[in-house]
């Protein structure tokens, strides 16, 4: 039987490879300067989804929430064979914590409609919380299976999954629908397929298209540009190259549950940690010395 598979992915700053260009003069990390990448474990989730579809049949819809440029990772999904791509982008969703994010994603999934399996990476490298998957599952009222290492079998409506338990593993059986989060040890994500890349590199969402049209038709009126955007969207749609773009209105979201107002947690303070190699300094073994050492670590940007 064909399965409706959903995939949740996120574009993240590459926190694992902080390069010299991403450092400010004061030694802190300029997050905006970090390259935006496909969250690594979401690639494992993508591979799990592709393998499941190839083995058991069905189709894959990928959903991401982020700024318009997050369309990059949706194209990366299309290059590997995903069937449908949806970009949820809305400034009102900015500053959402994990609870607000999971509310928005769950609303989007409800808008998509029917699903059998939802896959997501275990956690994103910018926050490392691993909370959005389980919180989405709760909001959808489905069984969650975290830390998937192997989709063992799928027979009719019954799935068997081997999951990492932190100090070993277990094989669990559940009835669909389920939401599973996938770990980095689950598989080796396949590379992008060249033929698909050639075909889908023109895939665009509306905001991206509008920016392109604006750059090309500088002298045109806003109305003319808009007409051109709509014309191109139709053409893309006919060619199967349209990245669907949704906002909070599309999914009927309660705005009080999105963004800052929907987020119970508040970042009260942030300290940067940055490192540079220095010479050996002797610190007096006193309270003042301790303060001096901490101060030194701040001054040389080991602590922020």
């Amino acid at each position, binding site marked *: 039987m064909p399965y409706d598979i959903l995939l949740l992915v996120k574009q993240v700053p590459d926190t694992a490879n902080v390069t010299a260009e991403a450092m400010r003069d004061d030694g802190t990390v300029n997050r905006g300067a970090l390259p935006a990448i496909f969250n690594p474990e979401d690639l494992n989730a993508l591979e799990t989804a592709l393998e499941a579809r190839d083995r058991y049949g069905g189709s894959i819809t990928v959903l991401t929430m982020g700024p318009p440029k997050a369309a990059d990772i949706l194209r990366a999904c299309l290059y590997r064979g995903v069937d449908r791509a949806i970009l949820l982008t809305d400034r009102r969703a900015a500053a959402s914590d994990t609870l607000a994010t999971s509310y928005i994603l769950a609303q989007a999934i409800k808008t998509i409609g029917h699903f059998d399996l939802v896959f997501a990476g275990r956690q994103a490298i910018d926050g490392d919380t*691993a909370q959005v998957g389980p919180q989405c599952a709760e909001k959808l009222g489905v069984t969650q299976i975290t*830390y998937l290492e192997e989709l063992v079998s799928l027979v009719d409506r019954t799935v068997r999954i081997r999951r990492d338990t932190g100090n070993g593993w277990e094989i669990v059986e*559940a009835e669909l629908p389920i939401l599973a989060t996938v770990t980095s040890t689950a598989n080796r994500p396949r590379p992008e397929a060249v033929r698909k890349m050639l075909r889908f590199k023109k895939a665009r969402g509306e905001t991206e298209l509008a920016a392109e049209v604006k750059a090309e038709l500088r002298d045109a009126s806003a109305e003319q540009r808009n007409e051109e955007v709509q014309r191109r969207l139709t053409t893309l749609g006919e060619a199967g190259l349209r990245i669907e773009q949704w906002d909070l209105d599309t999914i009927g979201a309660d705005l009080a549950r999105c963004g800052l107002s929907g987020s119970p947690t508040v970042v009260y303070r942030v300290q940067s940690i940055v490192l540079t190699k*220095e010479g050996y300094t002797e610190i007096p073994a006193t309270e003042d010395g301790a303060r001096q050492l901490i101060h030194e670590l701040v001054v040389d940007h080991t602590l922020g």
Partner: protein
Amino acid sequence: MIEVNRQGEVWVFAEQQDGTLQEVVLELCGKARELADRLGVTVGAVLPGTAREELPEQLIAHGVDHVYVVNDPRLEHYQTASYARILSVLIEKHAPQIVLYGATATGRDLAPRVASAMQAGLTADCTDLEIKDVTDRKTKTVHEKLLLQIRPAFGGNIIATIVNYDRWPQMATVREGVMPMLDPDPSRPGQIVEEEVALGPEFFPLKILQRHVEPRTVNLKGARVIVSGGGGVGSKDGFNRIHELAGALGGAVGASRAAVDNEYIDKGHQVGQTGTTVRPALYIAAGISGAVQHRAGMEESAKIIAINNDPDAPIFSVAHYGMVGDLHQLIPMLVKALRDRR
């Protein structure tokens, strides 16, 4: 979601596996005790599972006042739905102001499910917790005695302090091994409270077909900050100092071979030729003389601080900063200096 309240207990989720409490649970009991004393409230622990007398006793000896026991043979092995249901029902009933979970695979699976059901906040993988008055910068409202939830974020490039003003309980998962464990006091009084939570078959959607348990290892490789203790720490209790400093810095706990041989800490924490080779951004060696085998495992660290009472200890030869003196006096000073900055 529950209302902000000043009488609510500080709770710990008492995670057990095959009848044994996870070590982090006992670490959390000590921390919960400290937070509860600051707040003038009692400590509670939620223990789902099958009837075992020694577990509630162990929790009480480690600082818990009320152990909420939910006995049901179906709870022997963890699964999300039933455990989340139990936590949600008991939180609604007793309105704790703080709920702490170990940041184990299970804790990180359970806590977000509960947070979503309660529409409450949750901070992942905390390395330090404090109680402090906090002024909301936008509204200028002073929130008294909030839980500061301190955690590394952004790939370890920052330490973030998270608070939760009004959508309670304040919940956090806490990294294993960073909170010092208190010595158990078997004479401590405490109460076992039997709770009943109705659980239909829909709360057991998983069939566990096969289980395999492996011995645990500590994740030193991934740590950006490591605080290691050696033979100079002097005792197992003294090793709590190392945990304290690691917690304040959002780091992991390491050890030299001497500390492991003296059984101050288990072998999974050992840094060096026969242990793990590490190259964190910051490595603090306390009470470690710095035998070549140890240095080989850590000298590539970006920044090294050595604390030792022997000014001729070889560890100073690879250090960027050195403090000559008693680590039991110096570490509290460092922790205080760090906290004063917050």
